């Protein structure tokens, strides 16, 4: 995918990737244990990773895993905001990805980068899957307003593009649509085949249910709820070029590692790098010692909702958390709203800690996810209040600090747990390995279509 949308390479055989990976795993006789949900990492006194604690999602059996190195690849925080449909699992990201990796890394003391850069996507309204204007774009399709006109130069996702989407809605020219109906039948068929086969296979079913035909109608889009992601966005657990986090022996790869816009290709590549470095690390180092009291404490935290007679089910804790995220954290970010939001989230945390109730292992899994979701919400608030600047279009937009401020904020932000509290600090941007051409430097500031004679 070219960053400004000049070309895109769809993966026509995307559905074969997972099978190929699985065959390799079987050939190498890697032990795979399913149904164990990791809940917390174990660390030694000197801050090295020592392993992880996991719970079986069917039997609630605990597992304590000792490991010399741990690679986290638990996906994006896709259940942070609530979809406008109100259906909690109608998410853009895989709905099983509830930000557990972010929460685990945070509690282990690892630094997380750029969490104030929210993922906000231009999705098919209600279906909440990608409209894929950037796939259809090279074929001649484009994002249009309610008059069927283009308003942005590039359909590829960026903070700036989303801001123009937002501006278009504010100006009364919404909704925004994906327009294909001006294209030749053969072109539309080709696009339709790619999108319905390679992206999400129920997309065709959705359009069928709505009687939407790409040949006749434009496809209605909307601005999604927020999430954290690095596959298609820019925030996650801080990693260096060897996929190492700030905790020794702990690695992160994929959507949850802060390698902006790395997608599947990046996930595989970084995963591979993580694997190789972790192998080397494990060869050079022995197991680290952890405190068994940490295990006992974690068991108590996990089982607390099973020890009540009455209470609030995890689905209500989750719904309320995510509804509050929508109400208070959805950009444009307003400081006063963030402060109010944090108060409301703190109240839900109280309820979660003191009144959440589960009655089976499935609900237990959901209750643990609710914890991660709330942790991510807190991190979203903390990082957002720290950056007193607007930077990457809608993802960062802060009404109280509406301008870009390179002098003070041309930097990453790192969030981490210190003495049990959330802290933020700046981190300098490393010198670019591939320089940006002068004419590309302000490309994103020129997204809106300009009339030219």
């Amino acid at each position, binding site marked *: 995918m070219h960053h400004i949308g000049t070309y895109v390479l769809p993966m026509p055989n995307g559905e074969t990737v997972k099978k190929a990976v699985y065959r390799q795993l079987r050939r190498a006789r890697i032990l795979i244990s399913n*149904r164990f949900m990791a809940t917390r990492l174990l660390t030694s006194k000197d801050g090295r990773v020592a392993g992880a604690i996991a719970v079986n*999602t*069917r039997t609630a059996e605990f597992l304590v895993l000792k490991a010399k190195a741990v690679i986290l690849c638990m996906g994006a925080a896709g259940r942070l905001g609530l*979809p406008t*449909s*109100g*259906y*909690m*699992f*109608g*998410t853009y990201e*895989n*709905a*099983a990805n509830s930000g557990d990796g972010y929460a685990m890394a945070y509690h282990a003391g690892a630094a997380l980068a750029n969490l104030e850069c929210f993922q906000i996507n231009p999705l098919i309204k*209600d*279906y*909440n899957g990608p409209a894929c204007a950037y796939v259809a774009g090279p074929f001649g399709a484009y994002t249009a307003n309610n008059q069927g006109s283009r308003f942005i130069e590039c359909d590829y996702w960026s903070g700036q593009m989303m801001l123009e989407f937002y501006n278009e809605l504010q100006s009364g020219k919404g909704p925004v649509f994906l327009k294909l109906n001006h294209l030749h039948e053969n072109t539309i068929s080709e696009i339709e085949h790619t999108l319905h086969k390679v992206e*999400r*296979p*129920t997309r065709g*079913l*959705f359009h069928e*249910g*709505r009687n939407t035909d790409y040949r006749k109608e434009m496809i209605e889009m909307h601005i999604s709820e927020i999430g954290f992601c690095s596959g298609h966005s820019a925030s996650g657990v801080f990693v260096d070029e060897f996929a190492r986090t700030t905790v020794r022996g702990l690695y992160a790869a994929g959507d949850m590692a802060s390698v902006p816009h790395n997608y599947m290709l990046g996930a595989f590549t970084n995963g591979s790098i993580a694997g190789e470095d972790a192998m080397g690390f494990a060869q050079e180092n022995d197991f680290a010692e952890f405190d068994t009291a940490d295990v006992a404490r974690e068991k108590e935290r996990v089982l607390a909702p099973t020890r009540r*007679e*009455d*209470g609030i*089910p995890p689905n209500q804790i989750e719904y309320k958390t995510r509804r509050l995220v929508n109400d208070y954290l959805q950009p444009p970010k307003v400081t006063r709203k963030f402060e109010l939001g944090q108060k409301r989230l703190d109240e839900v945390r109280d309820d979660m800690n003191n009144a959440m*109730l589960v*009655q089976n292992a*499935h609900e237990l*899994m*959901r209750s643990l996810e609710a914890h991660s979701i709330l942790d991510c919400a807190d991190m979203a608030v903390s990082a957002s209040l720290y950056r007193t600047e607007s930077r990457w279009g809608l993802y960062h937009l802060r009404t109280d600090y509406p301008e870009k401020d390179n002098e003070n904020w041309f930097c990453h932000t790192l969030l981490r747990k210190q003495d049990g509290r959330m802290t933020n600090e700046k981190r300098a941007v490393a010198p670019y390995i591939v320089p940006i051409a002068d004419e590309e430097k302000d490309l994103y500031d020129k997204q809106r279509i300009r009339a030219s004679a």
Partner: protein
Amino acid sequence: MPLAATHTTVPVVVDDAKCIADKGCTVCVDVCPLDVLRISDLTGKAYMAYDECWYCMPCEADCPTGAVKVNIPYLLR
């Protein structure tokens, strides 16, 4: 904790006539990324136990007898 009895629609529907869960098949249950399908003790057939669906299709695609149908959840349809 009260159990509020309200009817609900669920996105995934199983045709009991085609389902062979009673013969030991657990494919749909195994492939669901959200773990929301179960085999009923009463009927011996698969069904959607939790309305937590990502409408992602592995259950329908992998069912060996074509017994599973994924619908778009009512709230989004």
